[in-house]
């Protein structure tokens, strides 16, 4: 399969700290790739480089073969990249429905329309409702974002990212702070997105068992460097990974 996202020799330092150090990685289209590593390994920084939040000191990011280094996030979204944040990021003062309607409006390019109401298009509303139902927030359509529980907010953010119809989704710790039921629900969603919709997924995650059970491929970062990349089986038996990462926990 072809690589949908590729990094070449990506570097970013904060002062003396090399947060991401010459990472070259390619992600196959349609695969579910997890990025793992001990705390402070540079996972979130790596995500921020991929999604255009940070600009690398050196190196390049390629999306579908095109160099996207330094392009603003809103342009990357138009090219099919969606992301969620580690600290859940939604529009707290808008209702669940309006949250998703705004995301849909963003992807249709009608966001400068000063005349028509957000809900004036029945198609937009029904599309929004079906996305909201697909993540299981159906009963909360008219609730304000700020009134949702932590887990439901994460689901809402999921719905926002789905609304822009991405071909690749970056999920930064999608199950952080969730209880077991919410986690199971989210895992089911991620699987569905990956297997049925064919969306390429890259995620970071703390729960190692979960990572091994859902990933097609796993990338291991340690101190900003990519130390291993392979299938869960390969990673499990990788000596460098054991030493740097799994060994610490055991």
């Amino acid at each position, binding site marked *: 399969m072809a690589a949908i996202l590729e990094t070449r020799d990506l570097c970013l330092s904060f002062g003396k700290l090399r947060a991401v150090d010459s990472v070259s990685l390619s992600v196959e289209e349609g695969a579910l790739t997890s990025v793992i590593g001990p705390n402070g390994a540079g996972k979130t920084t790596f995500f921020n480089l991929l*999604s255009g*939040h940070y600009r690398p000191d050196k190196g390049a990011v390629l999306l579908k073969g095109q160099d996207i280094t330094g392009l*603003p*996030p*809103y342009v990357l*979204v*138009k090219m099919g990249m*969606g*992301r969620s*944040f580690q600290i859940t*990021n*939604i*529009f*707290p*003062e*808008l*209702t669940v429905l*309006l*949250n998703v*309607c*705004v*995301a849909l*409006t*963003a*992807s249709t390019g*009608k*966001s*400068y*329309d*000063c*005349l*028509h*109401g*957000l809900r004036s298009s029945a198609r937009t509303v029904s599309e929004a409702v079906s996305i909201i139902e697909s993540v299981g927030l159906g009963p909360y359509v008219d609730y*304000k*974002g700020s009134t949702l529980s932590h887990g439901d907010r994460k689901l809402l*953010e999921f719905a*926002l*990212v789905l*609304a*822009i119809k991405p071909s690749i989704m970056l999920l930064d710790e999608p199950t952080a702070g969730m209880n077991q039921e919410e986690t199971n629900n989210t895992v089911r969603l991620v699987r569905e997105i990956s297997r049925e919709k064919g969306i390429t997924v890259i995620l970071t995650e703390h729960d190692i068992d979960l990572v091994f059970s859902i990933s097609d491929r796993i990338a291991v970062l340690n101190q900003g460097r990519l130390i291993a990349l392979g299938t869960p089986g390969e990673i499990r038996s990788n000596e460098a990974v054991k030493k740097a990462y799994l060994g610490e926990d055991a």
Partner: protein
Amino acid sequence: MKDRSASFVRRLLPFLAAGALVVYPLALPRFYSSLAIEIFIMALFALSFNLMFGYAGMLSFGHAVFYGIGAYTAALVLKHAAESMALAIACSMAVSFVAALVIGFICVRFTRTYFIMLTVAFGELVYVIGHRLVGVTGGDDGLVGIPIPQISLPGLPVIDLSNMRVYYYFSLVIVAAAAVVLRIIVKSRFGHVLRAIRDSQQRALFLGLNVRRHLLLCYALAGLFAGLAGALLVPFEGMVSLETLHFSTSGNPIIVSILGGTQFFLGPVVGAAIFILVKDTVQNVAEFWMLWMGIILVATVMFLPGGVVGFVARFKPFRSAAGIAKKEE
């Protein structure tokens, strides 16, 4: 039964309000017409400010720039080009819009503290320029001796804007029309995108929205309507003073919006009425009315974060009345 009567009152309310506004200048002495005109102009100025602050989260301390530019533009058109109110208004709005695009282009790159300080700086910069360009603005003396235009439409008697009662109706129509347009903007896709940006710029950016460009358009629209408010001031006062560009003038729409309630569309209108009435009352008995305004503002900020409209809407009997000013989700 009770519900039905409440909804009946609610439906009737806009008509009652409209009727009262029509009868008002005929029933009361001329002075009250001019008081109402002041309220209308302040309401429009504050509504334009609140499009920026209440809906997009941009707290500008330099909104007088566009109000002042609108006033000076209208005055210059009336004085030197043509005695046409339509032309004066059109020019004011256009010039204020362009000025807001230019200044906004720099300001919307920044958020929060930096945005606020930049708007203060631009406010002062434009004030200083206005003070220096004596040939255009009249400097400290302001622009005086501005002819007050008449409007003659075919088949209608000539509308003489120098008559205070006539000008009452004229400004009422303009401000009401502008408020309707602003209401449509606030309710539109763009209006909701602004709210989303206010809630989380980052999330909006990563959903593919060009945040800066949306904020710039919002800033420029706010400038345009402030320019219209400034233009309405000219025939009313017959002059333009340098004070329209001053920092304290930038403070007025802020006070008014906070007072009325920034999360309610009509909040600034209610705030404008309170502001002008307090000013008029205090000025009759004391010299320094801003002192009292400051105290009222402290009380509002401390105890009524939703403003007066937000406070009234808390009580059930008034909820139907506040319904027209319904809180935006």
